[in-house]
Every structure is written in C-alpha cells, then in structure tokens.
C-alpha cells in the first residue's frame, strides 16, 4: 500500500528511470547470453547456439594450469600495490593543489598534471625504456655519474614492482585528482573560516575539514576500486613488463592474450572473464556491505 502510494506520488522519479533502464537492458543485458561461450567449444562459424556444449571443461582446463594461478596472484599483487600507493596519491595531490595560494598557478598546474593520462601506453613504453633502462637509461647514467651503481629498475623483479607502480601513479594521479578537487569544492567554506578563527593550523584544517568533507567520495571510490581488484588492464603490464620480470608481470589480461589463435580462444577468454566478473561482483558487494556497516556509506 505504502509502495503504491510512493510510486504514484513520485511517478516522476520513475519516469526518469525509464530511459536509463531501457538502455541497460538493451545494450548491457541483451548481449549477456554471450557468457554461454565459456561453456562451449566455440566455433566462430557455427555461432553461439550451434557450438558444442562442453560444460565446465573450459574452466577445468584453465584451473589446471599453473600459469593461471601465477597470473591471478600477480593480478592481485599489482592491483594491491596500486591500491596502497595509487589510491591515496590523487587524494593527496588534490589536497595539495587545493592549498595552493596562487590561483593562476593552481589552474595551470592542474592542466599540466593530467597530461600523462593522454599519452598512450605504447609511447609511454618507449619513454620508460629510455629513462629506466638498467645500463644506459637516463636515470642510471645520472646515478653512475654521481657514483651510485645502476639500479635494475626494469630488469629485477622487485625493483620492477616499484617501477610499475610508480609509472602507474605518474600516469593517473593528475587525472584522478580531478574528482577529488570537485568534491572539495563542495565543502562549506565557512567551516574553514571558523576553524581558522579558532586557531587551527593548515594541517589540522586539512585533517579535520577537508578530508572528512570528501569522506563519502573517498569511500565510494574505494569500494569501486575493490570491485576492480581482479580486473587489470592489458596495456601497462604488457608494455612495462619484459622477459626478465615475467614472473611478476604476467597477469590475467596478458594470460588471455597468450592463448593465441587456436579455435578455443573465445571460450577460454570468456571463461576467464566470467571468473573475473563473479569474483569482482563478490568483492564489491562485500566491500559495500562492510562499508555500510562501519561507515553507513555504500553504493547499493
């Protein structure tokens, strides 16, 4: 009864939802039948329906390969590093930018800082090599000049992790800070004024006003990030990675890539994708649940 009343009373809200929902159904849900491919021996010419059903064979094949687990482990490891280092970075940058005194400089700086986001990974790869190569890279040449030996940024596994993460931060921090800057503008300026009058220092003001002020944004973006933990882009690991660090650089996306052109490629790729989807969904629902219980914020 209450339900019906609500819908009637707020019919406009539901009308506003019609087109978006139609969009999702047509463009997102209608193709979903394609996940069947993960359970079939997909033949590109027979099509999805007529391809032979093989049940869980594809999954069994994948789960029996050591390479899959290495790729899975690396995916979590690299994403974990990105989370620990790459998640706070844009927040810190946004706060620092916000604290700049010269408005003109702030505007210019913002535009410069997101430039890396626009450079394609193919180009970045070339630059990374020039800068970080072990023996004749720019940085190591410099280090040699001042007496420190070369650091194997790209050729040693653990050092490579640092390089991978740093390059990722460099590429995304400027762009990622935009959303936080937008959130910061939503904070009531009077709070700052009041705090200053009360004698709070800059750092205290940041800690007690800015950060809590964007708390919701941070939490929501964090939950979304957790949902992405099992997903990983192809470009960065592939391009920054190399033969010597494959043990760490091989991830689920590159794992799918090496499956090559045998006829089973679609089935395997879809199966891995399905695995990632299920795990990802579980992650995000869990994160959402925990967040709602602890902070009362969530996305669903």
């Amino acid at each position, binding site marked *: 009864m209450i*339900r019906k009343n*609500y819908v009637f009373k707020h019919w*406009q*809200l*539901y009308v*506003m*939802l019609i*087109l*978006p929902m139609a*969009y*999702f159904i047509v*463009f*997102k*849900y*209608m*193709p*979903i*039948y394609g*996940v069947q*491919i993960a359970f079939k021996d997909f033949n590109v010419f027979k099509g999805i329906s007529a391809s032979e059903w093989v049940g869980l064979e594809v999954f069994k094949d994948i789960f029996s390969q050591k390479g899959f687990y290495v790729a899975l482990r690396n995916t979590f490891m690299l994403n974990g590093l990105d989370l620990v280092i790459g998640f706070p970075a844009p927040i810190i940058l946004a706060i*620092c930018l916000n*604290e*700049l*005194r*010269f408005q003109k400089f702030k505007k210019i*700086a*913002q*535009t410069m*800082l*997101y*430039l*890396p986001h*626009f450079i*394609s990974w*193919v180009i970045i790869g070339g*630059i990374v090599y020039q800068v970080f190569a072990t023996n004749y890279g720019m940085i190591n040449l410099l280090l040699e000049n001042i007496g420190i030996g070369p650091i194997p940024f790209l050729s040693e596994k653990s050092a490579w992790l640092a390089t991978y993460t740093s390059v990722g931060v460099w590429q995304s*921090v400027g762009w990622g800070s*935009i*959303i936080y800057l*937008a*959130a910061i*503008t939503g*904070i009531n*300026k009077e709070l*700052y004024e009041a705090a200053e009058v009360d004698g709070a220092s*800059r*750092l205290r003001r940041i800690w007690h006003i800015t950060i809590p002020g964007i708390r*919701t*944004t941070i939490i*929501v973006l964090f939950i979304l990030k957790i*949902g992405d933990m099992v997903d990983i882009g192809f470009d960065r690991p592939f391009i920054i990675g190399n033969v010597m660090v494959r043990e760490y650089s091989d991830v689920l996306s590159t794992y799918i890539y090496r499956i090559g052109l045998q006829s089973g490629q679609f089935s395997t*790729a*879809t199966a891995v*994708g*399905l695995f990632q*989807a*299920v795990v990802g*969904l579980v992650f995000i629902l869990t994160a959402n649940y925990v967040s709602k219980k602890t902070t009362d914020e969530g*996305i*669903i």
Partner: protein
Amino acid sequence: MQRTSKFSLFDIINTLFIVFCVILCLAPFLHILSVSLSSNAPIMSGKVTIYPIDMNFDAYARVFSDATMIRSLIFTIILTVIFTGAAMVMTTMAAYSLSINNLKGKQLFMFIIVFTMFFSGGLIPEYLLMKDLKLLDNILVLILPGLISPFYMIIMVTFFRSTIPESLNEAAEIDGCSDFGKLFRIVLPLSLPVIATLSLFYAVGRWNGFRDALFYITDQNLYPLQQKLYQMVMNNMISEVTLSEGANAIAAEYMPESLKAASIMFATVPILIVYPWLQRYFVSGLTLGSVKG
C-alpha cells in the same frame, strides 16, 4: 580560500612539491612535442629529449594539409559534443532518482546497474546486437552503447547525496515543488562541479576511445580521430608487409617519427583545452547563501 596573507613553510613545501610534479608530468609531453618539431636524423639517433633539434614544421604542414585529418577532427568534435550531452542527460536522470533515499526499489535498480559493471556478453554478441539494430557504420553506434557509465553514475549519486542538504529538499517539498522541479531548480544548480567533472570524463573518454569504432565502423568518414592516429602509429610496426613493400617503398614513405608525433599532438591538444575551460564551474554552489544551519 585566501584569508590571511601569511606565507607559511607549508606553502613553500607545497608549492615546490607541485612544481616537481608538474615537471614530471610535463616532460614526456614536451618530448613528444619536440619530436614533432625535429628532423629525422636526430630523432633516429635518440638525441631529442625535451627540446626540438633541427626544428622544422614539416610534420605539422603535412597533418594540417591532410583533409581527412581535418574532417576527422571536426567529426570527432561533433561526436564528442553530442555524446557528452546525451550521456549527461541520461546519467543525471538515473542518478537523481537513485539518489533519493526513500526511492522504492532503489537497491534493486542499483544492483541491476552495478551488475553490468562486471558481466558483459563480450565482443561477438555485442557486435551481433549492433548488426541486428542496424547500427553498424552509423554514428549512433558510437553514442548509444556507452551512454551511461555506472561508475560515473555512482559518483553523481554520491555527490547528490552528500552535497545537497536534506533541509533544502524538504523546504522545497513544503513549497509544493515536484520531483522534476527539485532536480532543475535545486539539485542541478548546486551540482555544477560534478556536472563539469563528469562531462569532462565522458568527453575525454569518447575522444580517446576508438576500440568500438575499430570493429563497428568501416566507413572512413566516421572514424574517430584517435583511430586514425592509432592506425598511423601501430600499422607501421608490422614488419612482414613493410618488407614486402620492398621497392614499392621508393615512393611509399615510411611513417616518419615526427609525423607520428605531430599527429599525436593534433589529436590530443583539442581535448586538453576542455578542462581549463571547465574549471570555472568548479565552484561550490552552496556559497550562494541558500540555507542556514
């Protein structure tokens, strides 16, 4: 934000830090710019760092005299504008409804949307769908499938919920304002930062994206600029055919690095200037003296 004019140590360190970051982010870009303005020999010898050597504008002359590049640029601008507008309308409609705490069925709708962030049919079913909807080689195929990003929609919902005070809404309702009215008169004017941000995100996403066009578009008049660029940069890395060109390479030139770099600049600079233009919207709407307390 500028109240006192006392310049503290914090400011100095902060400014230096930002300058350092700016240099790091600017350098590679300067490198590409320099390559686009340099001659071939220094580039091949790896001598070009962040300033041009043997500077010339040949590469840019070629790019700007290529009518297909210009046409693609114009097409991409139009496409991006239309797409961003449509996407923002759809996203805002969905986000506003879903930001109402009491909306019945809200959790269900959110779940349906979040679900699509993870599960998708894959390339082949999506292609078949576009084919069945007769969208192939149609500008709509570059607009419709990406109309709502659940990620951005969630950001908007979050923003609505956390920045628009409940009190405002209640006041409006008492005044007899409908849901539509609340959206247009209260929420939107106060949401300029998030609207500007998401518009930027959608615009950049559409501008930089070409993977969909790679498969769905064969009509070269409908190629997004980045696709032309990608082909230019990637296609010349395939060795079998460049070898087969053999003597035909007398007239057919290899793609000079400077031309690639100039094309990259050509395809990137237009979208870069969108953000500075949008920055003026990054002001809080709440300072317009709305509700006290």
